[in-house]
C-alpha cells in the first residue's frame, strides 16, 4: 500500500511537469472489424501538418482529430473509398500516401516497371551480342568439357 502511495505521489508530481504534446484521446470503435478497417485507413492517410507520417503514427493533435473523423465515417457506414474521398475533398491528393493513378502520376506508377522492361531488353540484347560474338569459334564437346573442368577448378582455387 505504501508502495502504491509512493507511485501515486510520483504520478501527481508528473502532473506538475509541463503539458505533454498531444493529450487527445483515441476512442477505438466497439466493433473490431470496423476498428481494423479504420486503422487500415489511418495508415493510408498523411498527417498533413507533420513531416512525413501517417495519421496512425503521428502524435499531432490534428492526426488524433482525423483518426476520430475516420472512425466516425466508418461507423456511419462509409466504404473505405468514401472515407478517403472525403479526406481528399478536404485536403487534396496530398493527404493520400498512395497517390492516385491519373494523368499527372502515370509515370510514377509505370516508371519502375518500364525500367525493368527496358533494362531486360538491354540485357537480352547484350547477351545476344555477346553470344554471337562467341559463336565464331564453336568448341567441340570434349574441348568444352575440358574447359568447364578447368574453369570449375579455377573457381575452387
Amino acid at each position, binding site marked *: 500500500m505504501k508502495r502504491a502511495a509512493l507511485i501515486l505521489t510520483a504520478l501527481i508530481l508528473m502532473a506538475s511537469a509541463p503539458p*505533454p504534446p498531444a493529450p487527445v484521446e483515441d476512442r477505438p470503435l466497439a466493433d473490431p472489424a470496423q476498428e481494423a478497417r479504420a486503422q487500415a485507413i489511418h495508415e493510408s492517410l498523411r498527417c498533413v501538418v507533420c513531416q512525413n507520417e501517417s495519421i496512425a503514427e503521428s502524435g499531432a493533435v490534428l492526426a488524433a482529430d482525423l483518426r476520430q473523423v475516420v472512425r466516425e465515417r466508418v461507423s456511419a457506414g462509409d466504404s473505405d473509398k468514401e472515407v478517403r474521398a472525403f479526406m481528399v475533398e478536404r485536403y487534396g491528393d496530398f493527404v493520400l500516401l498512395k497517390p492516385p493513378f491519373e494523368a499527372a502520376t502515370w509515370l510514377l506508377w509505370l*516508371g519502375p516497371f518500364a525500367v*525493368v522492361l527496358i*533494362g531486360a531488353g538491354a540485357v537480352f540484347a547484350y547477351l545476344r551480342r*555477346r553470344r554471337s560474338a562467341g559463336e565464331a569459334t564453336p568448341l567441340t564437346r570434349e574441348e568444352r568439357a575440358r574447359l568447364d573442368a578447368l574453369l570449375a577448378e579455377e573457381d575452387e582455387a
Partner: protein
Amino acid sequence: MIAEIGHLALILAFLLALVQAAMGLSGGARRDSRLMAGARASALFQLLFVAMAFVALAICYLIPDFSVALVQQHSHSTQPWPYRLAATWGSHEGSLLLWVLILAIYGAAAALFGRRLRPTLVSRMLGVQALIAAAFLGFALFTSNPFLRLHPAPLDGAELNPLLQDPGLVLHPPLLYLGYVGFSAAFSLAAAALIEGRADMAFARWLRPWIIAAWSALTLGIALGSWWAYYELGWGGWWFWDPVENASLMPWLAGTALLHSAIVLEKRGALISWTLLLSILTFSLSLLGTFLVRSGVLTSVHAFAVDPARGTAILGFTVLATGAALALYGWRAPSMQTGAVFSPVSREAGLALNNLFLMAATATVFLGTFYPVFVEVLSQGQDRISVGPPYYAITFVPLVLPLLAIVAYGPMLNWKRDSLKAVTGRLKWPLLIAALALVVAIFTLGPSHVLQILGATLGVWLIAGSAWVLVRRWTAAGRDEIGWRIRKTPPAVWALCLAHAGLGMTALGIASVTALETETVATLTPGQSVDFAGRRMTLTGAEIVEGPNYRAERVILHATGPGVNREIISERRFYPVTGTWTTEAGIDLTPLGAYYVSVGERRGDGVVIRAWNHPMVGWIWWGGLVMAFGGALSLADRRLRLAAPAPRAPAKTAEAAP
C-alpha cells in the same frame, strides 16, 4: 583563437585541393613523376588540414565556446559532453565539415595505398578527388563557414535538437558519410580510367576494395539509423520511406549493384563500361542525397536548416559533376569494349540480372522521392501529392522479391556457361528447406499476407543457400579434408555467404514484423496490469528522474509470461531549454522479437501505456550487421590486399614509359 586556427586550416585545405587537382590531372597527362608525387603529398596534407579544422570545431564545442555562432546554436552548457562533441556534426555546417573530412580520408588513403598501381591512374584519381574536395571546401568556406564568431559572445547557447542527443548521433552520421562519401573514390577512379581510356581487370581489382569499404560502412550506417529511429521516435517504426532515408538507400542499392558488376569485371573482364557508368551514378546519387538533406526541397525529419541558396549550389555541383563524368563516359567508353563472352545462363548473366533488379529498385526509390517535387514544380505549386509506404509496397517490394530469389543462385552458377537444370540440382537442399519454410510461413503469417510469406520464404532460402555454399565447399573432397577445408576457406567466401545470409535475415525480420505486429493501448494505475501478446504487464513504478539537461517521467513495468520475468523501463523526457519532449521506449529485445513499450500521457491517476509486439524485428538490424561484417571480412582477403600486380620499378621509369 582555436576557431581562427580552424578557419585558417580550412582555407589552406581548400587551396591545397586546388593545387592537388592541377598537379594530379596534369601530372597524369604529362607522366611527370614530380607532379604526381606532389599530388600525393597534397592529398596527405589536405587530410591534415581538414582534420585540424574538424578538431578545432570539436574543441570549440567541448569547451564550449559560445562566441562561435555555430556552437552557440547547437550546444548548451548543461548538455553532456559526448553530445556536445557529437553536435560537431549535428548541424549543416558541422556535418559538411565531416563530409569533407571523410572525402579527405579517402583521398589520403588513395595516395597511401595506390603506390602499387599505375602511377598515372592514381594521379588522375587524386586529381578528380581533389576537384570534388575543392568544390565542397569552397562551398563550406563561402556559404557555410562553421567558424563565424558572435560579438558580443552570449552567456549560453541554444540546445541541440533533443531527438539528436543520443548515442546514435555519435555513430550514425560518421558511418553514413564513410559510406556515401566513400563512393567518391569509385567515382574518381572510374573518371581516371575513362581519362586514360583503360579499364582492365587490375583496375577492377583495385576498384573493389573502395566499393566494399564504402558499402560496408553505409550498410552499418543505415542499419544503425533504423535502430535509432525505432527506439527514439516512440512508436516502433524502423523504416519510413522518408526522403532522406531514401537518399541513403539509393546509393546503397546502386552501390550494391556496383559491388557485383565489379566482380564480373575483375574475374571475367566483362561489363567494363557498365561498371564505369555505375561508379559514376552511385556517387551522383550520393551527391543528390547531400543536396536533398540541405536544400529544403523536401520536408523530412532529417532536414537541416533549409536554405535554397545552399541547395542551389549543391545541385549545381551535382549536375556539373554528373554531367562532366557522363560526357567523359560517352566519349571514352565506346572504345573500351571487351571480347569476354558468356551465355544467358552463367554467373555473369546472373550478376547482370542482379544489376537489372537493383537498378530498377533504385529508379523506383528515385521516382518516389522526387516525383512529388516534379508535380509541385510543374503545376507551379497548385498540385501536391504524397508518396508514402503504400506506393513502395506495390512497386519496390515486387522488384526486390525476384532479386532475393536469384541471389542464392549466383554463387552456385559457373562462370561463362551453365545450365539451369544443373544449377537447380546443386541447390536441391536449399530449395527443399525453402519449400518447408513456405509451408511454415503460410501457417504462421496467415495466408492473406502474400508478400510477407514470399519475403520470409526467400529469407530462409538465402540463409540456407549461403550455408550450402560453405557445406558444398567443405565436403567437396570427402570426409578427411573437411577440417582442412574449413580452415582454408578464404575470407572472400565467408564474406559472400555472410552478406547474402545477412540479407536473408533482414528479409525474414521485415516479413515477420510487418505480418505479425500487434499493438495495444491501456491506461494503468499503480498495481494494475494488462495482458498483451502472451505477457502480463504490471505498472510497478513511476518516478520523476532529473537528467543532466532534462527531466524524465519514468515508468517501470514488470512483464511476466512463459519464460519471461523482467522489468521494462520507459521514459518521456522534457528538455526545458528547447521545450521539447522525447520518448525513450522500453524495449525487451530477444531473437524472437521485441516487446516495445512507450509511455503516453497521464490520465487521472493513471498513465497511458502503448505497447507493441514486434516478432523477429531484431533480425532486420542483425542482418544489416552481418552484411556489413561480411563486407569488412572481404576487405581482409589476401587477393584484394595484394591489389594489382605491382609495378616493382620506381616511379622514375614511369616517366620513360610510353
